[in-house]
């Protein structure tokens, strides 16, 4: 009992040195990462019943590219890809996992910390404080979730994602599982960037993501020869196509996941 109070260790900001510059760099790195997350989600969730705004999509993709270039430049991109290994067939919905960070990731240390930008009711909320490096606005967890700002036709997607969020939170006690889940997911998002050996100068990672998201919408030719000829590109179809276009993931594994989500949804709606 006495030992409980014996050593009062001063809490340190991360476990880094107290040097102001290090803190600033870490802060900037966090902000940049959250901007990257936000942008990726905007890209994924940007389609609706009508064709999404191409100007907006292109500008967001350019922002992602810009961040990625900078991260490659200062070496933090390598850390991200190393931390999460290679891609493999993923059972998890990419966007959901990008939203939900597990504690296991934070404990890996060294690399950039991944922070959820959104706040879900009843879920872990993060407060992202940004400074002049990005902008000077504090948006707290009380702000409406990003999904809420997307058009209303995403109600179904929102509910499902909230359901998966709950599941991940419940599972976060078991670090291995959530760590693995996040690993495969981040691997899928970033790891897939490394798959394609693109032409020198072009960015394979971004192209892969971009091609899965946009080309099928805006290019009739690409659409006709696309991997998946889904009749309607709803949210799941997009995520399915992302999962299936990289690696031997079969639709069935995604479908199993979806039925699991349905089950969870029923529980939530039932309560």
């Amino acid at each position: 009992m006495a030992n409980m109070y014996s050593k009062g260790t001063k809490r340190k900001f991360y476990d880094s040195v107290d040097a102001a510059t290090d803190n600033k760099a870490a802060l900037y790195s966090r902000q940049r990462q959250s901007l990257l997350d936000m942008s990726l989600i905007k890209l994924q969730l940007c389609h609706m019943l009508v064709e999404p705004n191409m100007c907006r999509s292109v500008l967001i993709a350019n922002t992602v590219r810009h961040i990625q270039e900078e991260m490659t430049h200062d070496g933090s991109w390598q850390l991200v890809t190393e931390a999460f290994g290679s891609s493999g067939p993923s059972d998890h919905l990419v966007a959901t996992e990008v939203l939900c960070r597990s504690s296991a990731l934070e404990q890996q240390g060294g690399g950039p910390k991944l922070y959820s930008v959104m706040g879900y009711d009843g879920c872990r909320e993060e407060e992202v404080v940004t400074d002049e490096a990005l902008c000077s606005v504090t948006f707290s967890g009380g702000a409406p979730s990003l999904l809420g700002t997307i058009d209303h036709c995403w109600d179904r997607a929102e509910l499902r994602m909230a359901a998966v969020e709950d599941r991940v939170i419940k599972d976060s006690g078991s670090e291995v599982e959530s760590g693995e889940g996040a690993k495969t997911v981040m691997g899928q998002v970033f790891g897939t960037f490394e798959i394609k050996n693109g032409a020198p100068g072009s960015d394979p990672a971004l192209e892969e993501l971009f091609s899965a998201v946009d080309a099928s919408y805006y290019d009739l030719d690409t659409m006709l020869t696309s991997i998946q000829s889904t009749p309607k590109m709803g949210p799941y179809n997009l995520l399915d196509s992302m999962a299936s276009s990289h690696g031997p993931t079969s639709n069935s594994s995604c479908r199993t996941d979806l039925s699991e989500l349905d089950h969870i949804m029923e529980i939530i709606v039932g309560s």
Partner: protein
Amino acid sequence: MGEDTESSKVNHSFLRDYVTEADVISTVEFNHTGDLLATGDKGGRVVVFQRETVVGHKPKGELDQVGETGESGEYNVYSTFQSHEPDFDYLKSLEIEEKINKIRWLPQQNAAHFLLSTNDKTIKLWKVSERDKQPEGYNLKDEEGRVKDISTVTSLQVPVLRPTDLMVEVRPRRVFSNGHTYHVNSISVNSDGETYLSADDLRINMWHLGITDRSFNIVDIKPANMEELTEVITAAEFHPHHCHLFVYSSSKGSLRLCDMRASALCDRHTKLFEEPEDPGSRSFFSEIVSSVSDVKFSHNGRYLLTRDYLTAKVWDLHMEKGPVETYQVHDYLRTKLCSLYENDCIFDKFECVWNSSDSVIMTGAYNSFFRMFDRETGRGVTLEAWRETSKPRAVLRTRRIYTGGKRRRGDVGVDSLDFTKKILHMAWHPEENIIAIASTNNLYIFQDRVSPDTQDPDLGSNTI
């Protein structure tokens, strides 16, 4: 829409707050004389207003003073029609919105008026004509059009044209479809009176007004590999006098002036207008805020006016290296860009307009504010388009945003700005100081009544 000014006296406040999505105005345009004003909305409808003409003038009071031309005219609804219907692209399984993106009037050649309206995919030419006479006295048919019983016809009469109530007929004359794979953002009628251009995200086509099954592709920036796409076309316009020149703007903030005499496909610009980026102010949002949302030639054809997210810029056609004038529209948002990126406001596309003499430029902002800049003095003023303060004949007052320093009464703090009330679309009368401002589903028309007693003109208002 079409509500007369009488009803503004009744308290409809609970109805006013409810905005039907379909009623949101998406474009506003005066015709070449300024007598007609057309608005398009998200529901695919076009409403045309006509200015009433007052013959002679009788001074009623200071605010009601009639201008020199003898017209004190207010704008009243002239015609309403459904221009576009929602459509469905079966190949891509996506809906095609009926929202009217742009309306452009043709120069008037006869008694009828012609306008072009476009949604994301299809451009239509409409003929708006009046009928105020009707033939009466047919021999074989009665007034309702039923065939007469021959035995009742005893004498022969000559049908005559009798005046009737004014009827405005609107008919579609041409439908220009299947010209665009991507979303049409601009249309512009050429000064030759025969052709017009339509621009989508990646291509610009030139059409002849009489031919609907063919168009010329004059600009194509689609990369061979769509994965390499980094730039889109955001706006395009023909030069007001030179029928071979047009300009288009891009999402990277550049303007390209093209000469159609140089080659059939104007992929290589004649002039490229670009402002070098200030390396000190570079951020992750630099590119997004530099994206040009609107470009307009000045009436004299010597300048270009562009709008990007935070500024409005005037460019001299003879100087490509940078704008000659830059006006800060709402620089206080520069530190809020991350938040505006999150809620997508950073992608809002504001329009900009010149006044008739090219001495004043105007553009919209948030919180129902819009800004006017006097080019000679460089001074800007913030005005508000808001129903509560805009009773008919009320004077517009200037507003201020509080950004620090001494706060005056009436100043609005940056954090209390309403970002849902955006002034994106507006138009300036081609000859007089009359402006039309669209704010969500409301249309405001402000007329400049120059009062001889004061230096500054008052702006009277007429809310529709």
